[in-house]
């Protein structure tokens, strides 16, 4: 230990860098937990080391006005490829990013794919395991979108 205390300046600088990395690593999961609570990001990701600690699942359903009133799930098989891809990407990335990835861009893509509709709803259901009852609980978020009308030319 005596020899170590007489370490060269470069070594001491590197020791400081190492300690900086380790302190960040040790404190970051506190921030990650806040991100999970506030934005519903995936608890398993973003260096929080909560893998296999909890379970969450996300269901994304785009809805459109039903002919007789109300809402009905969009027929995804009838969507053009670019809209299906956008939906696939959103379903893949939303569980990881949570509310940091709002469905606005997806809604605009769906409007582009379905020119005949003026409104749609993106329903996002987040499932998780309740620690008290050990049952699945869920929260549902529905975002209505109205097609933006292009300004009329003079």
């Amino acid at each position, binding site marked *: 230990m005596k020899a170590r205390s007489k370490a060269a300046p470069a070594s001491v600088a590197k020791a400081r860098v190492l300690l900086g990395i380790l302190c960040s690593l040790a404190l970051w999961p506190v921030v990650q937990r806040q991100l999970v609570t506030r934005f519903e990001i995936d608890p398993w990701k973003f260096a929080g080391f909560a893998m296999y600690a909890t379970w969450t699942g996300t*269901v994304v359903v785009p809805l459109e006005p039903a002919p007789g009133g109300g809402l009905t799930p969009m027929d995804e098989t009838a969507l053009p490829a670019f809209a299906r891809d956008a939906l696939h990407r959103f379903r893949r990335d939303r569980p990881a990013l949570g509310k940091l990835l709002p469905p606005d861009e997806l809604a605009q893509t769906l409007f582009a794919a379905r020119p005949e509709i003026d409104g749609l709803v993106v329903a996002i259901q987040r499932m998780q395991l309740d620690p008290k009852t050990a049952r699945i609980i869920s929260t549902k978020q529905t975002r209505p979108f109205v097609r933006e009308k292009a300004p009329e030319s003079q």
Partner: protein
Amino acid sequence: MTRAVSGAISLRVLGQMGTVDDVAAASSLRTFRQFLLLYASVRSFLWIAYAETDAGLLTACACVIWFGLAQSFSAKWAWLAPRIVLPVLLVQFAWRAPHVANHHVVEFLSFTMLALLGARERRDATSVLQGLRWLTMIVLFWAGLQKLLYGHYFRGDFLALMIAIQEPFAVFFRMLVSPEEISRVAGYDLWRTGSGPFRLESPLFALASNAVWVGEMGFPLLALLSRVRHLAALGAIALVLAIEMAALEIGFALLFLHLLMLFFDAKVARRLFPFVALFLVYALLATADSIPGDPRLWKLR
């Protein structure tokens, strides 16, 4: 003065993970660097093999890592390999974002620490080795603390859910849980609100569940005590092996076991290296459909 104090504190804190002479530390780090580059090489290959897009970018990144792997066997230039690979890892993980797993973060930080070694490796080897030991124990501790905070391990709820959705968990826990109980939880619809309870009556199962977070938090704390440090590392190795028998996260397991082996003499990891290399070559051949097996199931990526 402040810099001198912070430097002394840094060395002191790092020293809490054991004092190792520079020659032994450099030897341990050489083996670990070779493993890490081999691991990153195989992971990069698998990313290319299963990529839906950007195979060109991933191939370019992999080529740099493969070059780094070759470099790691050169006595003169091995120290440079992590510095060359580090920016490439950033590109790979940016491509993968937001689906970067925690073991990718551990891999990146390990490379970062190894990149601190200069041409005269022995000079900083002890600090870097201590840093990597700290990294290992911080990650393990947080893994346990998160399980404690989420509260799904006290009565085994999370593991019961995993039994329901992942076959390897069901197979692993057959020795503690009756087939009827396994069938019961497997029958619940995970995607229906109110499904459950994902709770099993076996006291042994609850004990095993609690042993996970207790071990994950306990071994890192014990590693701070010089007398039992090796025992704590051995316990952590046993725990990781037990967990991976159910979880089958082979990629994470390989990386983490090699980090834990940094608590022991370099020859342990060196002797294991050919077997690990053989396994990873097997994974590559299986990916190329040359031999049976599906590396996707081993979660090597």
